[in-house]
């Protein structure tokens, strides 16, 4: 005890557990990534480095098809939900509380509280009737469902940005006879922009990752990248799935890093 100073915040074993947790958190993902570069078929025996699984995935027309579909859905859902969320955030932040405001807030955050499987089943039931009634089988159902569950993911960063915003600039603009629209366009929007971009990116990532709701809403032949991967995992595991997963993980990490840089508080 004489040689070591007593640190009150240190609890024995905590750091060891924490380091073990970080290793356990990253090891499986790291293995998956490493074996996507394996020259052999195995997921446990290393046969040398190769890009063969990436080449195979790239040449696979089905992979191309589902990737494009995923990107179309994610881009549409992120755009739609971000516009709706920005408007809702402007209406519910920095305003004198009004009747029903809490209701709007709860409704917007509803997708975060309800288990995905429940929403998925409810949408399956609802859209089954709509499909029969209208005969429409297109991507619209998936885009609507994704836009809905993306709303809170777009809303929260925008709201956070708005709450941190100073009212003075807008008041100054109004004092200089700027119309509410011009004030919004030239003052509020530019300051709000990082929050909007951040919200849109979270919405995009959330849509891109969705499995459960997509699985229940999609019509035949509307597989997205995650539902395609799920079907592949059920069949046989090849390095191709690892290669696609690695690309998807890399994309997520790039978007998230950008998100953190955008929302980082300047000190």
């Amino acid at each position, binding site marked *: 005890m004489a040689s070591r100073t007593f640190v*009150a915040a240190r609890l024995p074993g905590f750091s060891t557990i924490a380091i073990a*947790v970080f290793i356990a958190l990253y090891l499986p993902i790291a293995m*998956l990534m490493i074996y996507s570069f394996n020259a052999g078929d195995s*997921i446990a025996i290393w046969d040398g480095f190769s890009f063969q699984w990436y080449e195979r995935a790239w040449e696979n027309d089905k992979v191309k098809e589902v990737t494009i579909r995923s990107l179309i859905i994610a881009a549409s859902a992120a755009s739609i939900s971000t516009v709706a969320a920005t408007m809702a955030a402007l209406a519910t932040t920095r305003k004198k509380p009004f009747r029903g405001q809490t209701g709007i807030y709860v409704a*917007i955050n509803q997708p975060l509280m309800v288990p995905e499987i*429940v929403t998925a089943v409810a949408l399956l*039931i609802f859209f089954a009737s709509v499909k029969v009634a209208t005969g429409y089988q297109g991507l619209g159902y998936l885009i609507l469902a994704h836009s809905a569950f993306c709303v809170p993911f777009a809303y929260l960063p925008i709201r956070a940005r708005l709450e941190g915003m100073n009212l003075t600039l807008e008041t100054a603009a109004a004092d200089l006879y700027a119309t509410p629209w011009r004030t919004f366009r030239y003052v509020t929007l530019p300051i709000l922009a990082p929050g909007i971009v951040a919200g849109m990116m979270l919405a995009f990532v959330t849509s891109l990752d969705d499995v459960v709701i997509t699985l229940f809403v999609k019509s035949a032949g509307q597989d997205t990248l995650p539902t395609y991967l799920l079907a592949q995992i059920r069949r046989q595991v090849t390095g191709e799935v690892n290669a696609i997963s690695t690309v998807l993980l890399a994309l997520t990490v790039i978007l998230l890093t950008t998100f953190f840089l955008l929302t980082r508080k300047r000190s």
Partner: protein
Amino acid sequence: MQETEATREAAQVRRNWLLSLPALCLLAAGAIGPLFIMLVYSFLTPGKYGNVEWIFSLDAWRGILFTRDIFDDTLKLADAHLTIFWRSVRLSFMTTVFTFVVGFPTAWFIATRAPRWRAFWLFLITIPFWTNLLIRTFAINQIIRNEGFLNTALIKIGVISEPLNLLYTDLAVFVGMTYVYLPLMVLPLYAAIERFDHRLLEAGYDLYASRLAVLRRIIFPTVKPGIIAGSILVFIPSLGAYVTPRILGGGRNMMIGNFIDLQFGQGRNWPLGASLSVLLLVVVTAALLIYVRFANRDGGHG
């Protein structure tokens, strides 16, 4: 003067509603409205080839706990259903407890780093939280499957001669859920510990408290809101889990989510699927309401 003030305020409120309208419409059509339709479906009769016939029936609600004997038409307790419910609750509870046991030291570790390093460690926890749940579950599947890394390594070093059948067991589902939901426990715990006043620790030690006593009597009570938040955030998605039990539990080790799915596939019993979903929704909402009451009460006192 006062009247114009009132009309201006009314116009402002109207504008707020108009601005919220697109988001509310999206959610009404794509998330909330269908829940009510699902409630209606839980009172209908299953159609022969899926979907429903519009005949009122309470069978779907009875069917949660009972099955009708095909020979003498009597009601019997559905053992298979009870097994699935029990597995769901037990695995979700185990996941919550274990994520707390390893998540608390992790959150403590992050919160006691130098401020400029904290963001880095926190980022390391946040990345898995945002990366694809399917891929993370799949990564666990690859590690523990028979020809996977763990078994290959154990055989190579001679600990075992035959691969351990880890995949498609309850244990695999438990490990998988702990892995994917751990960040949901660490983040609220960290938020609570970060606000913790470390002078309380010194005060405790000055009064000759042991490390354990400090942990139990000072740290846990102070960060209780974080513990409750983390537990709720882990328990709720665990109870409704679908992807993880599907990939790691296989067809035999179903949880409620997979059981609901079954009713819309081979089961061809949409009303039962609907009633099970409503039940799950009610349980989750109840858990959330209890949490909100707890959180408000704690907030009120402190």
